[in-house]
């Protein structure tokens, strides 16, 4: 049996798993809590000393389950979920899904880290502070920049840190009110647009030119003495590397504008070109994407922020520093800092995983990561473009760096099926597909990012699935309409998500709105 036939026989775990409240049994317990620590004070006496008006009258309606039933419930849910370890996760483009080495998980989960309180004296935290510091040192070489903060909790949070630094910088320059605009590009990540707005900036979006590059003439027209910063993702979400990027930074710098690089898509650039070579003043890197820490269903993550030394005064506090006298320490002495971005010092376990990942590969290994990511992407691209109904954005522009944004527009015109239909079908083959985030200016989009973790066979299998689905769209429309049939669930009625009368975001909201199965009260 070939792999495609094998994948056709896939069936995702389907347990018809009840909502946890449906398995609740009054009085059941999965864990017990320690009783009083000694007899000098009883719990009753202690509770009686609390203001009675502030005591809870009715217990919270949490489920009651014994431990086996609890474990079984969550194991069923985990099996109804595939993740990188269970599938060829290249359909989640822009997210750099890759293998997350198990040893790193063990190291980060060690009690020597997990049981540390963030406010412990620095002398008792030398190990983790040293690891933060060393990670910064590695990034000096990886990015070419000088100062680092591991505080941001994800890529968008990294963008928030950049925008906050921009504001702190212009405040210090006395131009906070004048410099009130930020320029980004259409194919930069949504956060590059949404975050500056949160920080009070007007945002100008540069449209792509015919080749898919941000339109430089439009950019020249957009920059002014009101521009505070530019936020550019490169390569953009189309996988196109902006070859004129230095011209953009030159034009910006001539007007004193700060240049912020979104390096969320850096997986194809390690050791090839860096933030500093593109002449950006700051950037962020996703330690959970490029640097191998797992995504955890959407975090915890780290969007490490890096900057040139001139911008050190504006970095989030505290920075991790080292001196012979103090050892490793947290430096809060930045009076012009943009402030604090995140509670305490950041997500230490993610930093441990990224550090370990880099230290298991070294300079040569990182270069190989990028070489193979680019190879895998261009290999996939050739395979996908041979599929009937598939095309690529900006077709004149090839090759691409680490990912590419494609389109099923032709498929849609020919068969009536688009990217959402393909998505339902892919679920039947034991793998994952995502229809791309905004902007949907490329019709019926899909974004494929193979990263370095997948084998040639994986790439052959995944692209064979796409080819098979395209064939089905042309030849077996009924089968496409039925999909998914091998997934955990069948066609979900999405009308329930946009109507306040119908949506239920919690089980109690569901029970207030419905009596039996979605039967309105």
């Amino acid at each position: 049996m070939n792999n495609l036939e094998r994948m056709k026989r896939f069936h995702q775990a389907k347990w018809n798993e009840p909502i946890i409240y449906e398995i609740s049994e009054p009085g059941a317990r999965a864990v017990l809590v320690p009783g009083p620590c000694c007899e000098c004070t009883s719990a009753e006496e202690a509770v009686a000393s609390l203001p009675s008006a502030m005591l809870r009258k009715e217990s919270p309606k949490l489920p009651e389950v014994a431990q086996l039933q609890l474990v079984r419930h969550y194991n069923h849910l985990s099996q109804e979920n595939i993740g990188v370890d269970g599938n060829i996760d290249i359909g989640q483009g822009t997210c750099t899904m890759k293998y997350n080495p198990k040893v790193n998980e063990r190291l980060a989960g060690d009690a020597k880290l997990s049981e540390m309180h963030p406010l412990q004296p620095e002398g008792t935290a030398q190990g983790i502070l040293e690891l933060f510091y060393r990670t910064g040192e590695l990034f000096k070489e990886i990015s070419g920049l000088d100062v680092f903060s591991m505080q941001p909790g994800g890529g968008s949070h990294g963008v928030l840190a950049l925008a906050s630094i921009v504001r702190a910088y212009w405040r210090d320059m006395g131009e906070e009110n004048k410099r009130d605009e930020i320029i980004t590009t259409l194919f930069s990540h949504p956060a590059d647009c949404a975050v500056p707005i949160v920080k009070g900036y007007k945002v100008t979006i540069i449209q792509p030119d015919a080749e898919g590059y941000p339109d430089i003439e439009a950019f020249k027209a957009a920059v002014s003495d009101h521009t505070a910063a530019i936020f550019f993702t490169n390569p953009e979400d189309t996988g196109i590397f902006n070859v004129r990027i230095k011209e953009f930074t030159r034009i910006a710098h001539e007007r004193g504008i700060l240049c912020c690089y979104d390096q969320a898509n850096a997986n194809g650039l390690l050791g090839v070109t860096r933030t500093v070579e593109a002449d950006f003043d700051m950037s962020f890197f996703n330690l959970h994407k490029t640097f191998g820490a797992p995504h955890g269903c959407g975090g915890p993550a780290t969007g490490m922020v890096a900057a040139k030394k001139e911008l050190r005064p504006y970095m989030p506090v505290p920075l991790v520093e080292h001196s012979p006298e103090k050892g490793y320490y947290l430096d809060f002495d930045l009076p012009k800092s943009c402030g604090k971005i995140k509670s305490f010092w950041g997500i230490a376990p993610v930093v441990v995983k990224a550090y370990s990942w880099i230290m298991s590969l070294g300079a040569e290994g990182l270069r190989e990561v990028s070489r193979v990511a680019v190879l895998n992407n261009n290999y996939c691209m050739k395979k996908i473009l041979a599929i009937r109904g598939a095309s690529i954005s900006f077709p004149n522009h090839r090759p691409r760096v680490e990912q590419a944004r494609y389109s099923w527009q032709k498929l849609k015109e020919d068969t009536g099926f688009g990217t959402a239909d393909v998505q339902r079908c892919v679920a039947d083959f034991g793998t994952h597909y995502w229809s791309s985030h905004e902007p949907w200016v490329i019709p019926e989009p899909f974004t494929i990012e193979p990263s370095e973790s997948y084998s040639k066979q994986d790439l052959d299998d995944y692209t064979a699935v796409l080819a098979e689905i395209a064939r089905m769209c042309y030849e077996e429309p009924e089968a496409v309409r039925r999909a998914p049939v091998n997934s955990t669930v069948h066609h979900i009625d999405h009308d329930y998500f946009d109507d306040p009368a119908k949506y239920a975001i919690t089980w109690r909201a569901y029970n207030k709105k419905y009596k039996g199965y979605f039967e309105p009260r």
Partner: protein
Amino acid sequence: MSKKVYPYIPNSEASVQAEMLKFIGVDSIEELIADIPEDMRMKRAMKLPEPFCDEAGLARHVGAMLGKNKTARELVCFLGAGCYNRYVPAVVDEVAGRSEFLTAYAGEPYEDHGRFQAMFEYQSMMAELLDMDVCNVPSYDGGQAVGTALRMAARIARRKKALVPRNVNPDTLAVLRTYLQPDVEITYVDYNSKTGRICLDSLKEKLTEEVAAVLVMNPNFFGIIEEKAQEIADMAHAKGALMVAYVEPSTLGLLAPPSQYGADIACGDIQALGLHMNYGGGVAGFIATKDEPRFVDEYPSRLFGIAPTSEKEWGFGDVLWERTSFANRDGAKEFVGTHAALWGIAAGVYLAAMGPQGMRELGEAVVQRLGCLKKALSGVKGLSFDRFSGTPFQEAVADFSESGRTVAEINEKLLERGILGGYDLGKDFPELEGCMLIAVTEQTSADDIKALASALDEILA
């Protein structure tokens, strides 16, 4: 010498690369990146330390570094101040460590049904704990959660001012300040120097028609229950402002949920619900509200809802996707990205494992230990718990100002005896110089408390 083998990069093998290049129709990988301009290329190899190519070497290296830490397990821990040394049941680690959850990401309902259901259940259990009908997928941390909660309030009330009491956690406040800048202005409300609670006179004075929201932290940073919370909510509502309550969810098995004293939006951090402290990395924020469009429309975060399927199964998906910056990049109200979903799944397991009875017992265990601690320390010379008259819950202000010693000195001496002393309040509150915030959890034993008492006896003798 043969080429290195990279265990995480299957296609690093030369013959595979050659085959793939041939298929693409190029001679080398370099041709695929030929358009990156020469003047942007790194002209040399990166100078990084020699890697630990074998896993054993890596484990030894990283293990040795982390081995330099002293943990709260090795020391006796009385530190709280926003991060709590709670026991994490083994089932929580078991589920959160499952690679199907750990390595999944954004997902789609058809492939990652389990993730959607687990998050829906987390939202549902948090909603019960908080007595609200809507709760979001976890945000980065409590600081961001309260920042968003106040921004939501500002949009709902169409006003630009937030009243923030001075007895909130300074670390949370620091994040909040970054988050609100520049569009929401913070006005500070004093705390009552006798009770440690919010000063109602100060609140009354600051509460104008321009105020969008009044924030209450409950218990507040001094560990004290804000027992006049209903009065504060009434005052806010009378001026057309909302009440936002920042609550410690682990207290809510015993303490009244925020909706029951008039809070319109509840928020906080779930670290204490079964997440390891992780040197401060075990944090994730929550926001909860009523199920009304004026609230729900203002969430920037993902909200997972339940829906029917064609075969009458439980289906799940994103509620009001168009709200989010994923869908509406320049029209979104705030932003959304990779946050802390796995910690939400973990907290869900914790809440289900504890159940209503467990959460109540947790609260009892904590207040019982705090009572025991105060008794055990009552004889220590130069120490009093009388700085504030308000009722503390899981941590209390110990006043050492009569002892002639600084908190830093005392903590140093405690550490010599293997004890992590409390948080030095004088750092953020000059008026509380000489005061220490001491926390207990259900893990604090009678021996721990005895050890602290006798160590303090020695140090202050």
